[in-house]
């Protein structure tokens, strides 16, 4: 589904990703861990199409297409979803209006019928229940005045509405209380199927007890230096990153 080869990315002439390789197949969950500033968010944002990041080398194929050639909204319509590490506030725009517009843009792209206000509301309410969010958030401005945890939960709500094929979760667990963490993880697990895949960026092994990954990768200084199964996360939790830091890049 997603094939990343030798990806190099710079920001303002500083190289941040220095040759990342990754293969993701439908149905898989990949966890990405790594120290602060190692390039995890950069990686997530590049996949989503953020312009400030310049791809200097490498290729990314998504469902047989050249992902790097697609505009951010095209990627989204083709099923790429990024749960932002820092969700953005849009004052004056209600969450329901925002999500209805987004969902209908995606449906139009797929040649599906537009949902009207009532149909959308019904769907949105179901998804709100799924992640145990109060319906009132639908009527509030997008992330405006939301607490940190509410913003994160709102990202998962959006994911649930849009049902992406490839969801990239950038530290969605940070800032969540224990209950919220479980609820969010449940939400992800309910959306999980043999057709979609997840890339989960996290600092904490704890999340991976709830969302069990097929692979764990360690990103250090712009390279994946170690890959393994979920036990790798346990070892990192115990031993920190020092032991992997000097590894050479691996092909995940």
């Amino acid at each position: 589904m997603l094939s990343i080869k030798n990806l190099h990315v710079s920001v303002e002439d500083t190289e941040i990703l220095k040759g990342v390789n990754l293969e993701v197949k439908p149905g898989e969950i990949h966890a990405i861990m790594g120290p602060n500033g190692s390039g995890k968010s950069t990686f997530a944002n590049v996949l989503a199409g953020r312009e400030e990041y310049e791809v200097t080398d490498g290729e990314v194929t998504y469902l047989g297409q050249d992902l790097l050639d697609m505009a951010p909204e095209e990627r989204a319509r083709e099923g790429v979803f990024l749960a932002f590490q820092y969700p953005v506030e849009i004052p004056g725009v209600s969450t329901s209006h925002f999500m209805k517009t987004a969902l209908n843009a995606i449906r139009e792209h797929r040649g599906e019928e537009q949902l009207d206000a009532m149909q959308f509301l019904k769907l949105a309410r179901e998804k709100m229940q799924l992640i145990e969010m109060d319906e009132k958030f639908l009527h509030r401005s997008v992330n405006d005045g939301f607490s940190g945890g509410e913003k994160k939960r709102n990202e998962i709500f959006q994911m649930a509405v849009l049902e992406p094929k490839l969801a990239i979760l950038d530290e969605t667990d940070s800032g969540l209380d224990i209950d919220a963490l479980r609820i969010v993880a449940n939400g992800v697990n309910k959306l999980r199927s043999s057709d979609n895949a997840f890339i989960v960026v996290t600092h904490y092994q704890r999340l991976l007890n709830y969302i069990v990954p097929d692979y764990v990768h360690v990103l250090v200084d712009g390279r994946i230096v170690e890959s393994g199964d979920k036990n790798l996360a346990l070892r990192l939790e115990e031993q920190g990153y020092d032991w992997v830091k000097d590894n050479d890049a691996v092909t995940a």
Partner: protein
Amino acid sequence: MSTENDTVKTPQKSDYDDKFGSAEQQETIEKLTQSDYKWGFTTDIETEVAPKGLNEDTIRFISAKKKEPEFLLEWRLKAFRYWQKMQEPHWPNVNYPPIDYQDAYYYAAPKPKKELKSMDEVDPQLRETFEKLGIPLDEQKRLAGVAVDAVMDSVSVATTFKKELAKHGIIFCSFSDAVQNHPDLIEKYLGSVVPYTDNFFAALNSAVFSDGSFCYIPKGVRCPMELSTYFRINAANTGQFERTLIVAEEGAYVSYLEGCTAPMRDENQLHAAVVEIIAHKDAEVKYSTVQNWYPGDKNGVGGIYNFVTKRGICLEENAKISWTQVETGSAITWKYPSVILKGDNSIGEFYSVALTNNYQQADTGTKMIHLGKNTRSTIISKGISAGKSQNSYRGLVRVSKNADNARNFSQCDSLLIGDKCGAHTFPYLEISNTTAKVEHEATTSKIGEDQIFYLNQRGIDTEDAIGMIVNGYCKEVFMELPMEFAVEARNLLAISLEGSVG
């Protein structure tokens, strides 16, 4: 001459397209047309034109044509003589080539235009705009100059509403009709808020105004429906000088809507209107405008010069006047809907969205003149500049020395889209009473790349994303608009922003 006319907002269901979901929202645009509309498309119209240019004879000609009483002719002539001694002002932050006031027609019945047979003959770009606005087909045809038979039906519907209004003693008619049928009211109130000496364009308007609307709500009457006027500039090369007068007697209430649309033309046209509002004791007048005069093309060719004087007076205690405006059109907009807070405890409000794109220029704001005690005013202004446009907020809050405990809150926000446009804020404060409380907040921001990316990442393209962010930014003002107007305003913003990206 323009076809200017009055209608009543129809509350009835209509069968045109279901773009906006709910039934109320479908009634976005005026469906009814106005009584003198038929001028545009029938053959028995007056085709007389006053000779080009402006002199006392032109004014006598206009007044005679309209069979006006002596007092009105005299008033026009005084205004004209005064105007002749005035200089065109150049203090606003706008630029335009000198206007030759002699090179225009001040009275022209509409020339029979080439009549288009179907919508297929209409400029596709114009048609597309109509469609996006969700303007009903008849209305589209009308705007584009296609013959419409259905108009006759609407006239009779309009008459039904006039009957309903008459039942409450409400007068709502064209200014010309009011001059004929209610000359006492006109004589009493005309020029009482905006005297002809007020400014250059008000003086010009007073001398040559063609028509307009008159609205009178008697004591204790709450107008049962929103009143609406659609002004249009149709004839080429004619300035538009309409005049609106609204009087709300003690305890009366009215919500008045003014919508403006004009066909596209290459030459610039002057629109110098005057609106006067008088609110007596405990009366409330809400005046909402969605101004979408032709802004010129993307290279700045053509478009309306919209130089308008709008002012209301809260004459007695507890009166309230609110101005809400959404300004997206015109090549140049220059206007300051104002409130004179004369009565104690009276309230003035100004809610404004002014959006400029391409080469548009806007210098707009308000004046809140606090004369009475415990008077309160609120100013919320949202300026949005895109393209190479210039957008200025200019506002005055004056608290006179007897206005004890006056309060004002002003918030002026500017949003920039791109880096070739400008936003400017000129707040003036003249406070002569130490008990006054005046708060002013101002912000200027650029539309956020991170916001746009966030929306892009959810599948929304950049143009729609900007439309959504800007609409959110203006929400406070839109909330003041009647529902169907708010829908129209939102669509207008989105359309006006087109091409502002990239």
